[in-house]
């Protein structure tokens, strides 16, 4: 069960994390609890994998190159092909989606050349073509995500 403190931390501190010497103390003061309580609650959220981290969101293509890639793979082959793709350290998100193009992943590398070589290798090793869909424009202003935690 989530406490009120957990819920406040989940919803109200997705952005503007304090850039001061004692940021958790500042959050504690705002919420009227102790610094220790904030530190423990955040550690609990992290250990229970409800948050991935307290940290930055960095827009794609600011450091190095990233690419969204789609592949159309026959269903019986999908797990095997997905495993090959996942083995590449440059691949992070790798998802099945409901479509003829059913395998979607994001690959990142320090240079566009390296990225292209990785995708060429993936095509060679899997025998399927990749649709390479680099970012052209990012319209999204990321203010965090409003969670409905009323039943959590």
């Amino acid at each position, binding site marked *: 069960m989530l406490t009120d403190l957990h819920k406040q*931390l989940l919803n109200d*501190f*997705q*952005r*503007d994390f304090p*850039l001061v*010497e004692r940021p*958790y103390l500042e959050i504690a003061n705002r919420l009227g609890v102790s610094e220790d309580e904030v*530190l423990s609650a*955040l550690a609990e959220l*992290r250990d*229970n994998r*409800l*948050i*991935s*981290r*307290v*940290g*930055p*969101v*960095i*827009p*794609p293509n*600011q*450091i*190095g190159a*990233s*690419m*969204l890639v789609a592949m159309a793979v026959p269903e019986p082959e999908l797990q095997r092909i*997905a495993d090959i*793709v*996942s083995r590449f350290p440059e691949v*992070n*998100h790798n*998802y*099945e*989606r*409901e479509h003829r*193009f*059913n395998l*979607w992943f*994001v*690959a990142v*590398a*320090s*240079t566009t050349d390296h990225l292209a070589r990785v995708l060429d290798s993936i095509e060679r090793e899997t025998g399927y073509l990749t649709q390479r*869909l*680099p*970012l*052209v*424009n*990012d*319209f*999204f202003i990321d*203010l*965090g*995500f409003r*969670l409905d*935690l009323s039943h*959590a």
Partner: protein
Amino acid sequence: MLDTRDFELLAAIQLGLPISPRPYHDIGLALGMAETEVIARLTVLKRIGLIKRLGVIVKHRQLGYRANAMIVWNIPDAFVKEIGSRISQASFVTLCYQRPRTPEWPYNLYCMIHGKNRDTVLKQLEQLGTDCNLDRFDRQILFSRRCFKQRGAVYRTPEPAAPAELAHG
């Protein structure tokens, strides 16, 4: 201007700030950087947009948001910026990107909606269609099914090969 120290700092914090009383001090220790310098550099990185936001990064799926749809449209290039900006303002949209079309994939605008279930997401999408006048454009809805791999991107900064983590592609 940015220097290699900024990239080292980004690399050092991408897996997350320490959950300890003085996280910037602890990060600085590892980098040989004073706490005040860590804070000053992060403040600049945020202002120039290299850090889009700094805070608690939630895991939607674990918090009950199990339906995730990627919706793609084919929008005439002349309108794509205006429409993309409007879509990105909907509270339930969690990403909105323009990407190039390919011969096999003739869509150029992508958005992501995270919802508690499929019905909610479809209703939100219907509302988005009305609000942004999208129903005239060819579109595909791709709900996610299995997750084969998910982790922050491991980045290697151009010069020193320090691993870091990045958000979405």
